[in-house]
């Protein structure tokens, strides 16, 4: 067993056959983390003893004949999802020392299926960022090239999966935070439709946009995890009771009878030539698999970034009001009044990007500005959503690049917030529209950096995009085939 390259599905097959135990898997991953993570910094916390104890328990369950869809599978968890008893800091100083008093619903669902919680992955503070450089615990590096960022905000999860330190990981995606790091690191990342997956126990960033989803080494692994994570939850009233497709319904051998749309607005200037070439080669591969590829239009795309960077900070400014030093986390010492405590705690507890977003959100919601910004952005959202509804009358899925460029260099965008924001330009639209989208690695550039293809599907049609991705992955010779597709 090479733990750095096996898929979650292969790990389960090996466990079923008795080729290895869950303890073997966890030990091998812990060795890999020990060897690699001083450089990558994907994990904020790994409790080796607890993970090994869970692995032994899973092995005993299996020996007793018990079953579970994730029995014995080690998974890494982004540091904004609560795992009972483990730290959960959102990579922020303001939550230093916080221990989760309960399981997030997604964690409870994984636990019920027998998954092992390997550790907490690094992220941009409160999931605000596109490079994992805005972490209070230092940046994560891209394992394919340590001078480059892994993307963000789920950069620790993407790097851990891509570098063989976890079989799979959970991330969260508000404007691209699963898909963009998946593209930069070379793994599969799925943002489910809004309402598919419960956010109970996810530290809220922008509640009308946030979704939880998997980062994996194969499309089938993403489908398997999606099947466990998805479903209505009384603790998140935004979840919708729509039947969840199983992994078999998400698998396709070919694309005969499938209509795919290419939105011309996503292939405009600013798209790097290597990304364009790799994505167009993937589109050709879809044609060869029988897909009917046609051009579509999403005419309000140019307003998406403005709408996103109004709606998301506005909601964040409200959600992050709860960090006041009263009930949990860091409290500034020596405050002389409650107001003094709030101001001192928040000023020393939050990092610069979180402060910028809180201020922007406070500003666009403040008296006299609400209609001009927030209400306008919500109306823009309606038009962006209508664009997708119209486009999906003509096709089953839409293909775009996940990102305008391959992974950028560390420090390249940290001084210019607007340039950092533009890293989300192709991904944030899916959050605004509430549709599902994934990133599939589709090749490598001359520097050996992965490139990502995004497939977007209608709301609650995850099987459409997973089907397209599985057919491509299969045509390229399996989950690692993309590595040979050079541009």
């Amino acid at each position, binding site marked *: 067993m090479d733990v750095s390259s096996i898929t979650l599905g292969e790990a389960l097959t090996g466990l079923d056959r008795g080729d290895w135990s869950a303890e073997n898997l966890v030990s091998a991953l812990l060795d890999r983390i020990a060897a690699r993570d001083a450089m990558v910094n994907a994990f904020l916390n790994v409790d080796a003893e607890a993970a090994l104890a869970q692995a032994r328990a899973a092995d005993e369950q299996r020996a007793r004949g018990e079953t579970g869809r994730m029995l014995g599978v080690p998974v890494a968890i982004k540091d904004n999802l609560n795992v009972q008893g483990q730290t959960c800091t959102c990579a922020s100083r303001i939550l230093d020392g916080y221990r989760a008093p309960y399981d997030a619903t997604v964690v409870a669902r994984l636990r019920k299926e027998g998954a092992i919680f390997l550790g907490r992955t690094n992220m941009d503070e409160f999931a605000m960022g596109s490079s994992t450089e805005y972490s209070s615990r230092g940046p994560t590096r891209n394992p394919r090239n340590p001078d480059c960022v892994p993307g963000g905000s789920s950069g620790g999860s993407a790097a851990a999966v891509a570098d063989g330190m976890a079989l799979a990981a959970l991330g969260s995606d508000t404007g691209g935070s699963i898909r963009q790091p998946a593209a930069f690191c070379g793994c599969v990342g799925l943002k489910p439709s809004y309402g598919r997956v419960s956010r109970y126990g996810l530290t809220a960033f922008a509640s009308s946009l946030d979704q939880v989803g998997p980062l994996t080494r194969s499309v089938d692994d993403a489908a398997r995890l999606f099947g466990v994570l998805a479903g209505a939850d009384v603790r998140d009233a935004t979840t919708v009771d729509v039947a969840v497709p199983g992994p078999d319904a998400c698998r396709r051998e070919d694309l005969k009878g499938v209509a795919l749309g290419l939105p011309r607005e996503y292939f405009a200037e600013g798209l790097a030539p290597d990304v364009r070439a790799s994505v167009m080669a993937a589109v050709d591969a879809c044609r060869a698999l029988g897909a009917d590829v046609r051009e579509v239009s999403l005419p309000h795309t140019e307003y998406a970034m403005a709408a996103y960077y109004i709606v998301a900070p506005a909601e964040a400014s409200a959600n992050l009001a709860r960090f006041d030093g*009263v009930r*949990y986390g860091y409290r500034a010492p020596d405050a002389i009044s409650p107001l003094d405590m709030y101001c001192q705690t928040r000023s020393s507890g939050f990092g610069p990007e979180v402060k910028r977003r809180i201020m922007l959100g406070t500003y666009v919601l403040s008296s006299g500005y609400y209609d001009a910004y927030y209400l306008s952005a919500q*109306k823009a959202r309606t038009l962006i959503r209508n664009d997708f509804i119209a486009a999906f009358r003509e096709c089953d899925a839409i293909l775009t690049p996940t990102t305008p460029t391959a992974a950028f260099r560390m420090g390249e965008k940290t001084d210019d*917030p607007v340039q950092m924001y533009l890293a989300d330009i192709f991904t944030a639209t899916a959050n605004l529209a509430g549709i599902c989208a994934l990133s599939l690695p589709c090749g490598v550039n001359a520097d050996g950096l992965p490139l990502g293809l995004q497939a977007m599907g209608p709301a609650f049609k995850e099987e459409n995009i997973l089907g397209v991705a599985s057919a491509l992955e299969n045509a390229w010779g399996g989950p690692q085939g993309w590595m040979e597709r050079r541009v």
Partner: protein
Amino acid sequence: MSLQDETRRAESMDVRRVAMLARLALTDEEAEVFRGQMAGIVGFVRKIGDMDIAGIEPTTHAHPVENVFREDAPVDGLDREVVLSNAPKQADGQFVVPRIVE
């Protein structure tokens, strides 16, 4: 007030006032850096004002869902000790904060 009028004012966004609304106390150095950055960001999102949105309904939830109700049945919450376990300061089963009333 039109968006153009407002955003012209925003170019000199009063970062100290906005920070205070958000319960952030900025150092002089921070205020200086943020002043420039926030002007850039506000300039970026101002593009929303170019959009023709007359007569468009706002979207607050991505899918048209009706009110969501559940049975009004009591369920257990977390135990008080568990809730207090992360408190920076506590006494007698309560969160302790600096004096509010002089």
